[in-house]
């Protein structure tokens, strides 16, 4: 029976144990009763029957006893675990309290590592993983993109013409198709009270398709989204709170941004941004808004105006591939005429991309940033874990006699490892708590500086974040503790007990050295990244844009669409504006023009006597603009040959033109352009305009981006009106900080004419801000995390060296007694530092050499394997290592041989 089984087997089958126990107990009982009865003269059979009679219902009672015993067992098991756990936690707290310095260092390391990851968690969640808020069944929602050949390369473009999107509505694969524009900035209010708001034009079915519900009022209907319809507008939640303090009676009020009156019909829910990330203040019906915003209804009827994006919801059971095939068919059908004329790619293909932009083609810059954030913060956590492991190893070394004694006393290795693990977990959770606080505070800063274009109001993943931090703390605590704990308990008991404090387990020391090397290597990788981005930023800052961007302000006017401010008023306004602004203190000069670098440019028909046609330029153009005479001076655009435009070039004087070097080389390569003739503003069926004489050749100014090939451009005098554009931008050269001058300049301009709705004044470099952002971001990110890594790594190195010296006091004393010189003793310490640092640099630089080309396309005029950066990082690390080893080395020289040799 059960009694014959070994106890281990019975314990293993716990239930069997309970049953066997009861069975054994009862069979013992019956045997005793029967014995008693037999002794009293009963027969065996009668005795057995009597014993069972006295017992009652055997089955019933046995069942009851078994169920009671099972409950008893469970209670004991839980109680035992609880006791072990509280014991372990208490032990952990005692141990940690005993070494506050070490505990603080470890908590700090964990806080930095976990904090970095907690900070980026919310960002990753919003940008990479979560579908857009308030969208129902987001898996069925797709963005429709078109992949096609354009100018000898393939482009995947999300902006389509309105007619293209209407094509898709014929498909039976979609439950709905909607269009939405890119964000446009509008001006609500006038003058100083003006409010710059972001808006999107959408079709009425945009909201129904996404399945979003308004928090107030309603969204607009298809009947309201018609050309010439009365304007209606849905407020974004953020704007409703900001401008209207969340008043519930805003419905029916009107908004005027200079393009008709719009009546508020509803408010979108908090954090709703459509399917993109950037905040939206006003949702407008596209067929009402686009004609007034863009001028005329042709935008909606032509296939040449690419200004809307398509979103669709798949019908149930329809696969992405089926939807793509049908949408492609419809797209090619709609573009039939263009394809037949050879003006459009016959192989154009529609892609149904996931609604989470990060998962589709062409992810936004934010997505790349989020990915770097994840990678870089992961490395920081890794460094923190390595550092903690290193510190714990050091303590395990100091404690190894205590450990040996506990082992000798019969404490199990499992228990010892468990204790060590518990200590590390307690520290990691403390670090995690600090990290949570840091993430709350740091998260806002990171979000607003690194990803300002994202609407974060949908709320932080609160519970998610806490769970994430706890999980991270547990994992990193376990990782950091396991290796030191295993090493410590693997030590041979006898060896450790016998050994004096001077002898050190060699493997442990080597492990510590290797961990320090790993930390140094990871820091090097991050610092190389930082260096490359900093160098890019520096190169961008000193990039030759042809003009001097520092201290330059640009002013753009915002007019009402009602036509009260006509072209003549505009010309007059700019003349007065230049005059007024130049009187302001700190302003060195001002000029007006008809296009803004990094923003817009116009091309006009051109004919040159002696040339059959204008040779094509790979970067487009030639682009022309009309400028006031001081333009070249104000921008700092150098005149290479001839002269700039002058006040004498006015209406009635001989037409003149200034071209840039790129246009000169395009038209008359290697020849002098001065005195040649160019006809600009050629139009079909119109008489040839008079010849404009080239009077000057200027340097090439950047047009579309900082990082572009020389673009052919020319300049005419605004007063001569050779091209049909009116000055619309003011350039103001200031002596100092452009940012500080922006407000006074704006106020002076606002005071000029009441008819203008607003004048936007900002530093010219802001126009290129989105272009600069990747470098700024990269530089900030890698520098911040790289410095944290360096700090942690140098502390790690310091702790290893300091511990070395403390452990080797006897050896150092002996050497000193035997006549070792001070430099020799310093060499002992510095030698180890040098080996660790050299190893870290070698590995780190090798890894960087392999990885750096991956960010090559993100750098500006810096080789991914830029020797200066690599050397600089190596030098920085050597410098830090020198500082970290200085104190331990100094301590080593102060070792007194007499004292050192007498210890123990």
């Amino acid at each position, binding site marked *: 029976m059960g009694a014959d089984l070994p106890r281990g087997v019975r314990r293993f089958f716990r239930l069997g144990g309970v049953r066997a126990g009861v069975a054994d107990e009862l069979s013992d009982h019956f045997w005793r009763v029967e014995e008693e009865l037999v002794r009293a003269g009963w027969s065996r059979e009668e005795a057995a029957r009597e014993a069972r009679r006295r017992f*009652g219902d055997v089955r019933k009672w046995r069942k009851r006893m078994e169920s009671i015993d099972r409950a008893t067992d469970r209670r004991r098991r839980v109680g035992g675990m609880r006791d072990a756990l509280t014991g372990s936690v208490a032990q952990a707290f005692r141990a940690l309290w005993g070494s506050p310095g070490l505990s603080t260092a470890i908590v700090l390391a964990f806080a930095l590592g976990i904090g970095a990851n907690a900070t980026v968690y919310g960002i990753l969640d919003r940008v990479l993983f979560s579908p857009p808020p308030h969208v129902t069944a987001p898996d069925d929602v797709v963005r429709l993109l078109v992949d096609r050949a354009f100018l000898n390369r393939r482009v995947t473009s999300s902006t389509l013409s309105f007619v293209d999107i209407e094509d898709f509505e014929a498909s039976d694969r979609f439950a709905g198709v909607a269009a939405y524009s890119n964000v446009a900035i509008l001006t609500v209010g006038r003058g100083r009270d003006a409010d710059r708001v972001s808006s999107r034009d959408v079709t009425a079915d945009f909201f129904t398709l996404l399945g979003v519900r308004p928090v107030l009022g309603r969204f607009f209907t298809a009947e309201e989204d018609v050309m010439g319809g009365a304007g209606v507008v849905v407020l974004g939640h953020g704007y409703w709170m900001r401008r209207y303090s969340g008043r519930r009676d805003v419905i029916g009020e009107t908004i005027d941004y200079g393009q008709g009156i719009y009546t508020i019909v509803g408010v979108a829910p908090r954090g709703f941004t459509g399917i993109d990330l950037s905040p939206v203040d006003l949702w407008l019906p596209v067929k009402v808004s686009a004609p007034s915003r863009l001028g005329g209804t042709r935008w909606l009827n032509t296939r040449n105006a690419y200004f809307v994006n398509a979103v669709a919801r798949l019908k149930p059971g329809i696969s992405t591939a089926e939807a793509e095939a049908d949408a492609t068919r419809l797209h090619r059908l709609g573009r039939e005429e263009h394809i037949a004329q050879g003006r459009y790619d016959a192989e154009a293909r529609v892609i149904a991309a996931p609604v989470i932009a990060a998962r589709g083609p062409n992810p936004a810059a934010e997505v790349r940033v989020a990915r770097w954030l994840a990678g870089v913060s992961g490395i920081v956590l890794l460094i923190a874990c390595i550092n903690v492991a290193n510190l714990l190893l050091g303590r395990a070394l100091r404690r190894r006699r205590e450990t040996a004694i506990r082992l000798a006393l019969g404490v199990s290795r499992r228990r010892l490892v468990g204790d060590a693990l518990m200590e590390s977990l307690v520290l990691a959770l403390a670090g995690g708590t600090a990290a949570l606080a840091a993430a709350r505070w740091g998260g806002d800063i990171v979000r607003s500086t690194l990803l300002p274009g994202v609407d974060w109001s949908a709320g932080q993943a609160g519970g998610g974040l806490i769970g994430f931090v706890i999980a991270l703390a547990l994992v990193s605590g376990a990782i950091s503790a396991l290796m030191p704990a295993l090493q410590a308990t693997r030590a041979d008991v006898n060896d450790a007990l016998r050994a004096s404090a001077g002898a050190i387990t060699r493997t442990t020391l080597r492990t510590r050295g290797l961990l320090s090397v790993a930390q140094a290597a990871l820091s090097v990788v991050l610092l190389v990244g930082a260096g490359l981005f900093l160098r890019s930023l520096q190169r961008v800052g000193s990039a030759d844009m042809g003009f001097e961007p520092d201290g330059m302000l640009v002013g753009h006017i915002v007019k009402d669409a009602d036509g009260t401010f006509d072209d003549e008023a505009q010309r007059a306004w700019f003349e007065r504006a230049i005059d007024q602004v130049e009187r302001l203190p700190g302003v060195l000069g001002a000029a007006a023009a008809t296009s803004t670098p990094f923003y817009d440019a116009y091309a006009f028909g051109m004919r040159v006597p002696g040339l059959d046609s204008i040779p094509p330029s790979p970067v487009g153009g030639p682009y022309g603009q009309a400028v006031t005479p001081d333009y070249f001076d104000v921008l700092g655009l150098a005149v290479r040959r001839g002269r700039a435009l002058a006040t004498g070039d006015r209406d009635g004087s001989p037409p003149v033109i200034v071209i840039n070097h790129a246009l000169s080389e395009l038209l008359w390569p290697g020849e002098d352009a001065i005195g040649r003739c160019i006809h600009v503003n050629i139009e079909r069926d119109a008489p040839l305009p008079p010849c404009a004489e080239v009077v000057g050749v200027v340097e090439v100014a950047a047009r579309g981006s900082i990082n572009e090939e020389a673009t052919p451009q020319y300049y005419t005098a605004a007063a001569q009106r050779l091209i049909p554009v009116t000055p619309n931008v003011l350039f103001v050269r200031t002596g100092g900080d452009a940012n500080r001058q922006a407000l006074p300049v704006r106020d002076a301009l606002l005071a000029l004419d009441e008819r203008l709705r607003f004048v936007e004044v900002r530093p010219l470099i802001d126009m290129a801000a989105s272009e600069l952002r990747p470098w700024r971001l990269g530089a900030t990110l890698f520098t911040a995390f790289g410095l944290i890594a360096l700090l942690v790594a140098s502390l790690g190195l310091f702790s290893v060296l300091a511990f070395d010296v403390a452990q080797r006091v006897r050896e150092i004393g002996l050497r000193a007694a035997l006549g070792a010189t001070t430099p020799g003793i310093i060499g002992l310490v510095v030698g180890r530092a040098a080996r660790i640092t050299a190893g870290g640099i070698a590995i780190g630089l090798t890894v960087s050499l392999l990885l750096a080309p991956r960010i090559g396309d993100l750098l500006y005029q810096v080789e991914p394997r830029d020797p200066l950066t690599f050397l600089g990082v190596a030098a920085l690390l050597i410098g830090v290592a020198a500082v970290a080893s200085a104190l331990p080395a100094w301590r080593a020289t102060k070792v007194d041989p007499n004292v050192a040799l007498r210890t123990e």
Partner: protein
Amino acid sequence: MGHDSLNLIQGTLDLLVLEALDREPSHGYGIARWVRERTDGALAIEDGALYTALHRMEKRGWLRSAWGVSENNRRAKYYSLTARGRTRLKEERVAWAQYADAVFKVIRSARG
């Protein structure tokens, strides 16, 4: 049998078991025999009920059990009092005496 009389019997049974074990640790059979001898068989307790009571009291922490070897070399389970069991015994004695007093008072006044 109603609920109250069951409780009475159970409470009584607990007290008897605790009293039995207060003298010496014993197995279930020994306790049953001791109870039967002391009460002259006046309380007809099924052995099954007594064993179940033992297991229940062990679960409550009043008793602890240990396996020993019986005369015929089989496993036998021995019970003894824990500290909590001893405290419980004192409480039960007091409670039982108060209860008995009260009942006696009623009986006497009914007669007189």
